[in-house]
């Protein structure tokens, strides 16, 4: 495969995770924060950016640790523990840096950083990148490329969906919703309709 084919495959992998098999609406990662994000668009986009940084950095660190340290040592089952240590340490280190050096960044991002540790999307991407192992005839470098594509697609997909959802919910506040549906139930029904909208893109990545 030449470089052009690699680029196309990379972009397709990103778009698959971004739209076709969207990480929140189709694979159900990150639902806790998705429901709870409420209707503030600014906090939703801050959360989304923080999650993006953490997902990409943690995937870039966890993949090499798995394939170059855990697998040769015969300890592939330690991946869950190692990944959560990496993710939590990353989040804490970034939080430490922001707390000490940038009050402005802390004001917008700082409160969400501790929540990213328990976000299913971060651990989910890191785990699913290495769970399936090497496909037939795939080199390590190709696997790393697809893992990073998955990480980028997942984080962008999360960011997109969370911001769109927050925008929709701002409008939803002004409508008269039946009392039993106010809050979480109508948010879930809205998410259902969003999920339906993305079904139309099925089959795009293959």
């Amino acid at each position, binding site marked *: 495969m030449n470089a052009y084919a690699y680029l196309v495959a990379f972009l397709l992998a990103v778009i698959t995770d971004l739209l076709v098999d969207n990480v929140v609406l189709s694979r159900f990662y990150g639902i806790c924060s998705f429901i709870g994000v409420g209707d503030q668009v600014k906090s939703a986009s801050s959360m989304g950016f923080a999650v993006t940084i953490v997902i990409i950095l943690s995937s870039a660190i966890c993949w090499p640790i798995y394939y170059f*340290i855990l697998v*040769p*040592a015969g300890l592939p089952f330690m991946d869950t523990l190692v990944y959560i240590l990496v993710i939590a340490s990353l989040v804490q280190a970034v939080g430490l840096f922001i707390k000490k050096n940038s009050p402005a960044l802390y004001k917008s991002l700082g409160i969400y*950083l501790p929540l990213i540790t328990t976000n299913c999307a971060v651990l989910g991407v890191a785990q699913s990148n290495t769970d399936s192992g090497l496909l037939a005839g795939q080199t390590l470098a190709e696997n790393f490329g697809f893992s990073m594509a998955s990480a980028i697609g997942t984080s962008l997909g999360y960011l997109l969906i969370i911001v769109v959802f927050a925008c929709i919910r701002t409008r939803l506040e002004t409508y008269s919703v039946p009392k039993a549906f106010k809050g979480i139930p109508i948010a879930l029904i809205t998410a259902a309709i969003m999920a339906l909208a993305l079904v139309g893109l099925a089959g795009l990545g293959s």
Partner: protein
Amino acid sequence: MSQLGYLLIAVGVILVLLAIFFVTFVLYRKTPVPKGCEKLPSAESCSKCGLGEGCALNIYAKKEDPKK
């Protein structure tokens, strides 16, 4: 490199990661919030699952039932 060599490196890496994890956690808890940000819902009370008062993800703030 032998299996044992890789195993020792892996155990070493895991111990280092554990140390980094605990140390960054304690340091993060100990550094004070920057000036001017105290009135925001504190990160400490919103840690891990965001169920403290006034936290962004706390959608049950108005519930009168105890959170336990």
